């Protein structure tokens, strides 16, 4: 059997094994944990590239765990969407591993093995969520991801982190319960847990109230996971108090994987026909998303702590992604997917830049950012690129995702959403330009360049380059995203 055919499971199992090895290695040499993580994540990145290449050229890969054929056994399916998510996760994970070295030494010097154990566990479970074709398996990985995320938030030095983590735990568990109930209901009526199989059996049951209830449980549960307003209350504390590496992970990947799960459940299991026409889920979702976009941005403007500001901005940005899902047409989905990619890079870059600033100058309050542009030219350059991209200015990446979303809104005849998307750009501009203004256009007397360590600046810069590249080379991405969107609809 071809090695490529085994990659779907390897991509999950390798980080899982690495995670179990971590505490043992940590017993001997703490810093070896970092190198093991680095090597593992590099390996996964290569796997991801091979997978993407194979999927684009040869089509989907189906892997049966233990050779049990579905619907009896667990199936792993790598299609375009999965491959897209896998490459995103593995790339950010690899980049952030480099970043984590200084961050971990600074923020949790004694807990490095614990940190890397959880870090690998989180990576493994995120990869598991996007590769599996089995609904219950997806739930299991979702829970592993959440549990490791709760712990990673709490691993920080401060008490606030514990409170943040506890809130996250409560809300996250509620969400997980809802999802589990949804799965249970679906199993009840279809007798299957394989996604493709359920999708096959569902259409005849669309009038069943159990199916309706299942759909609603799924949507609410996943809305908590993606912090859709007003179910976002756990997010700001959790993201703000986590170690910077983890903030990037939570904002950039954990939320995105929740959005992925939502796309999978709504489009592949329930189909557009069901959630647009049978139940008004799409309608409700898009309105909630629209409120999230505005409310998140307004909250972000009011923040002084840089990481809280970025966290609220994530609430708003997840609104864009949810809006695209709710629009349920080709440009809308393309916008969502593109924004998953763009936001992962932008917010990743912003959080890692914020982390570098906190690492170097111990300042979190944006009012103290005066003159930073001259003190940390490279970090702030990366920050500016990502911030301007967040505002949605061309030719950066987010301009195109917002453009697609707006076109999707117009296509479905809801121009009000297009207007909300555009106006929210102004709100984004309000808080990002106030930072840039302070950082660059304030005169300071001591303007010595003192950069953060290269292992933090380089990853930040690579993420910033991504923000530019996804805008300038959008035309390469576009056919790929269009393929995914048409296959979903």
């Amino acid at each position, binding site marked *: 059997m071809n090695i490529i055919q085994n990659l779907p499971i390897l991509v999950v199992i390798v980080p899982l094994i690495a995670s179990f090895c971590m505490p043992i290695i940590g017993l001997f040499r703490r810093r070896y944990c970092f190198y093991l993580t680095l090597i593992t994540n590099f390996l996964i990145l290569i796997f991801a590239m091979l997978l993407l290449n194979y999927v684009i050229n040869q089509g989907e890969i189906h892997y049966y765990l233990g050779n049990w054929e579905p619907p009896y056994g667990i199936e792993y399916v790598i299609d375009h969407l999965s491959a897209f998510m896998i490459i995103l996760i593995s790339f950010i994970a690899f980049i952030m591993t480099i970043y984590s070295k200084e961050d971990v030494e600074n923020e949790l010097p004694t807990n490095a093995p614990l940190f890397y154990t959880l870090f690998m566990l989180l990576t493994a479970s995120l990869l598991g969520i996007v590769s599996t074709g089995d609904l219950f398996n997806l739930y299991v990985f979702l829970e592993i991801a959440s549990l490791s995320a709760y712990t990673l938030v709490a691993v920080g030095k401060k008490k606030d982190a514990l409170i943040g983590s506890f809130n996250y735990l409560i809300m996250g568990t509620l969400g997980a319960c809802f999802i589990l109930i949804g799965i249970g209901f679906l199993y009840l009526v279809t007798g299957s847990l394989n996604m493709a199989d359920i999708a096959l059996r569902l259409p005849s049951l669309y009038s069943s109230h159990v199916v309706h209830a299942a759909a609603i449980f799924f949507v609410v549960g996943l809305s908590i996971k993606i912090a859709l307003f007003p179910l976002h209350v756990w997010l700001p504390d959790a993201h703000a108090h986590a170690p910077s590496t983890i903030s990037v992970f939570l904002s950039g990947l954990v939320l995105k994987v929740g959005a992925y799960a939502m796309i999978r459940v709504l489009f592949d299991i329930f189909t557009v026909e069901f959630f647009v026409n049978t139940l008004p889920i799409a309608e409700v979702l898009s309105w909630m998303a629209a409120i999230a976009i505005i409310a998140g941005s307004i909250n972000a403007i009011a923040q002084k702590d840089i990481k809280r500001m970025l966290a609220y901005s994530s609430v708003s940005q997840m609104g864009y992604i949810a809006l695209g899902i709710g629009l349920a047409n080709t440009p809308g989905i393309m916008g969502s997917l593109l924004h998953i990619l763009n936001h992962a890079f932008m917010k990743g870059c912003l959080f890692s830049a914020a982390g570098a600033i906190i690492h170097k100058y111990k300042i979190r309050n944006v009012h103290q950012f005066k003159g930073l542009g001259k003190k940390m030219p490279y970090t702030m350059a990366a920050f500016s690129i990502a911030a301007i991209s967040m505002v949605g*200015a*061309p030719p950066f990446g987010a301009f195109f995702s917002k453009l697609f979303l*707006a076109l999707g809104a*117009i*296509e479905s005849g809801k121009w009000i959403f297009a207007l909300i998307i*555009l106006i929210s750009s102004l709100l984004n501009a309000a808080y990002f330009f106030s930072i840039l203004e302070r950082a660059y*256009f304030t005169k300071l007397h001591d303007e010595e360049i003192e950069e953060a360590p290269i292992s933090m600046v380089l990853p930040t810069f690579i993420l910033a380059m991504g923000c530019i590249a996804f805008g300038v080379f*959008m035309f390469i991405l576009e056919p790929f995203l269009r393929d995914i969107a048409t296959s979903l609809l």
Partner: protein
Amino acid sequence: MKMDIISIKPILAVLVSLMAAILIVVFRDYRNIREFWTISASIIKFTIISSMLPCILTGNTLYYELFSVLPNISVAFRVDALGILFGILASFLWILTSIYSIGYMRSLDEHSQTRYYAFFALALSSATGIAFSANLLTLFIFYETLTLSTYPLVVHKETPKARSAGRRYLIYTLSGSVILLFAIILSYSIAGTLDFVNGGFLSKSTSITNLQILFAMFIIGFGVKSAFMPLHSWLPSAMIAPTPVSALLHAVAVVKAGIFGVIRVIYFVFGSELLLDMGLGMALAYFVSFTIIVASLFALVQDNLKRRLAYSTISQLSYIALGVALSNPNGLMGGVLHFVYHAFMKITLFFCAGAIYVVTHKENISELNGIGRKMPITMSMFFIAVLGMCGFPPTCGFISKWYLLLGSAEANQLLLIIVLIVSTLLNIAYFFPIVLRAFFKKPAKQNGIEEAPPLMLIPIIITALISVLLGIWPDAPYSFFHIVRLMEGYI
């Protein structure tokens, strides 16, 4: 027969200054090499753009498509008569402004000069991109980058006042962009294309009310940069920027990008016929004539020289809009000629203001008593430009104003003629006192002649002389007049 010739030149023209921006940052520690890149980029850019001129003058257009974003939307460049007019204007004046900038920035020993030159080059890239855009999306992309690259130039001084000017600039322009982008998306959903077509791509098949709202959104979107009242107030406050920025960007590149957008919308998105049918052309003409008068009144009471010039710019920009909104050959001719001529005259005035500031550190008109005796050359050039602004022959301002009056007469709009005449009187009322004060009032103390450094003086003389030359020999070979002639087909 008109042809679309595939050519990479438009992209090169955009990329030249982008590359220059990178080189400027790389060579930030060697100021002579850094300035060398600015100057050579401006010369190369002008050469590339003018090398396209012969081809355009034969009625052809140059086209290059970079890539497509969506079905029927691509990032593409097309150089036509209007585009090359703006391109040549901006790139030629960039050469002079670069030379002037070196004199200005070094005389004042300004800080952050690398940032200044780099963003200046980026702004020029964006302006060229706007000039050569083949569709609304491409135009919008460069329109936004122009906004963002000008922001650091506005806040260059880094004082609280500069920061608040910058904030105001962003609030106005970004809000304008939001409305503009919304209008663009709506047009795409209506027409399924965004490519500029002579005669417009929108048709009457859409309901009139929708088209009217759409047009209003376009005008508001582009109107911010064109400084139509009441969307103008960012421009006077942006005068806190270094004078070369005010000269090239806030009298030519940025504000004219707005007007350029208005022209594109009138003739290439809606088409003059559709607009006249809906009565929107005249509505726009009357809307801007309000700006013409009121901005001149505002200018009367400004004591800060640059602010007075800014209000004059606001008023003059609306002349251009008035001409093109009339949608008749003479009006269009007058508007587009004023687009060019105003640039030469206003840049001269700003250059003079900068020279005065460098020599005397004075910004207010009330302090300029007798400055004409101290800086005779500068103030003579200032006087020539003032004559042009007021529309006196033999300067070029007379010619464009003449065509504007002809156009208004042709459209049977007596009221617009009155507006133009009254505003000319107002121009005299706010410009002549400066000249009189400079030459005839006794200064506090007489120090003898002290002119600005030659790097500043030479550009001033060149622009002033060109303003006269364009007035006495408007149809010289390869002059703007011939390019404008090509635009008669737009109507």
